[in-house]
């Protein structure tokens, strides 16, 4: 065990903190638009693209790997949309199919890479559960930069995102390009997921998207507060999770991040005022108040 952080470790922590914040914030919109499972499918579907990028380039360049990951992730949600539109398969079944097929293909490709000369040293299997140890500076800068950009766009377009997430039909009547705005939200989700893959892994990434928003919902019913709280929860999960793997070297980063986020979720579920389980149980034991006379 070691507690002191060298420069590289500090940089990694800064990267995952912003990554967690970006995932938590854009994850709120994903949850509100009921795209939590789509996000999960996207993260899983990223694996084959990531592997293919390596097989083609034969080098572990993070921008290329993440580019491949994004493409196959988007292909995955495209397949889900296509199955829904042109067959009688319902969305949950389509997501189940895509999620497992793409992960299966990705796993096969991983073993193909293992057999390639130099492939076993590529360490691509770290993308399954995530790993922050050994990240190089440029990679961390890339992740940090994209996470920051995601946050900036959400802050700028908060009003537009809120409107389209709540009532896209009304937005269109007002003349907003609701499809484009919705697509932008989707694209930011893709970015957040893809930059999270190195640290959190394809299996865990969707949880980092969903759990902060779900936990934050216990604390507030205002959207801007929700985004801020979810951002902080994601940030804490990222930093604590990554720090745990620095201290306990054997633990993969993804599970450490997700366990931290889950702990915050359980705490919120139990102890949040008004919406938490304990507060609600407490309210139920209070004597009934007589209803007001004026009833609209």
């Amino acid at each position: 065990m070691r507690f002191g952080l060298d420069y590289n470790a500090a940089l990694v922590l800064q990267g995952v903190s912003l990554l967690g914040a970006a995932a938590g914030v854009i994850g709120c919109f994903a949850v509100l638009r009921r795209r939590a499972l789509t996000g999960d499918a996207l993260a899983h579907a990223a694996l084959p693209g990531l592997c293919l990028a390596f097989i083609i380039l034969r080098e572990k360049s993070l921008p290329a790997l993440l580019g491949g990951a994004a493409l196959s992730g988007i292909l995955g949600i495209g397949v889900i949309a296509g199955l829904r539109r042109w067959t009688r398969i319902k969305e949950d079944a389509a997501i189940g199919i895509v999620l497992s097929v793409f992960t299966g293909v990705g796993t096969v490709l991983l073993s193909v890479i293992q057999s390639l000369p130099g492939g076993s040293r590529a360490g691509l299997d770290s993308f399954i559960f995530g790993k922050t140890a050994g990240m190089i500076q440029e990679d961390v800068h890339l992740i940090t930069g994209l996470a920051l950009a995601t946050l900036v766009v959400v802050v700028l377009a908060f009003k537009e995102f809120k409107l389209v997430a709540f009532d896209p039909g009304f937005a269109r009547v007002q003349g907003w390009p609701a499809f484009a705005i919705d697509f932008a939200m989707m694209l930011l989700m893709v970015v957040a997921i893809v930059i999270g893959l190195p640290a959190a892994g394809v299996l865990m990434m969707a949880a980092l998207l969903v759990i902060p928003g779900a936990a934050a919902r216990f604390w507030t019913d205002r959207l801007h507060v929700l985004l801020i709280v979810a951002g902080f929860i994601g940030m804490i999960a990222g930093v604590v999770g990554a720090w745990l793997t620095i201290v306990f070297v054997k633990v993969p980063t993804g599970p450490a991040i997700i366990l931290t986020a889950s702990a915050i979720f359980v705490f919120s579920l139990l102890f949040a005022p008004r919406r938490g389980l304990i507060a609600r149980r407490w309210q139920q034991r209070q004597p009934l108040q007589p209803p007001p006379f004026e009833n609209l």
Partner: protein
Amino acid sequence: MNPPILDIHDVTVAYQRKPVLWDIDLTIDEPRLVGIVGPNGAGKSTLIKAILGLVPLVSGSIEIFGKPVHQQRRQIGYVPQRESVDWDFPVSVLDVVLMGTYGRLGWFRRPGAKEKGEAHECLAQVGIEDLARQQIGQLSGGQQQRAFLARALAQQADIYFMDEPFAGVDAATERAIAALLRQLRDDGKTIFVVHHDLRTVPIYFDHVVMLNVRLIASGPTDTTFTDDHLRRTYGGRLAILETIGQAVRDQERTA
């Protein structure tokens, strides 16, 4: 001469090759409170959505104040069906009403004190100003409908489209909405209302559009809302119609 308020020309709409609206021609020249009636599947909501550009036209054209709808967005207010949104969404009643001001705010500008003042006024107009800070999930059905109406008022439009604003609301809310619609009409606005309760049509509306995929009739309620047109709109369901006719007459006597 001023262009008509609404001019629908030869409009056909289809879902998956099945026509939902067939060759609709409809013109409204004067500010009116218009009820749109017809059986389930007659295309009432689709007519509103077609006018608003929410569903594609197979053929035909629609103009509002002489211009295509997409050039008249600021003039249009919209009250969608209440079930069309998630009422668990984390926003307050005031937030929802403020969305009515987003159209004139434009990209990236946030509502300020002026917009908030306007939103509070709109809430007062529908009688739920005291609920401004509540989360929308805590509202009753009638209050939700009032919140949607307040949001449409915040659009400061000249022509309003409302999809079943009277559906599933309590009597007090129904009266409040009816009074508000009349107020809007008296202020020179035109309001289109998809409506289900035939008994109240002659009381609420001065113009009626009777629809069953085709346009059956459109005109002043007094002369248009006739047994003959009702029969042609609702088909052979005469037994229902007799009772409705009786109910309408009862309601007219008591009103």
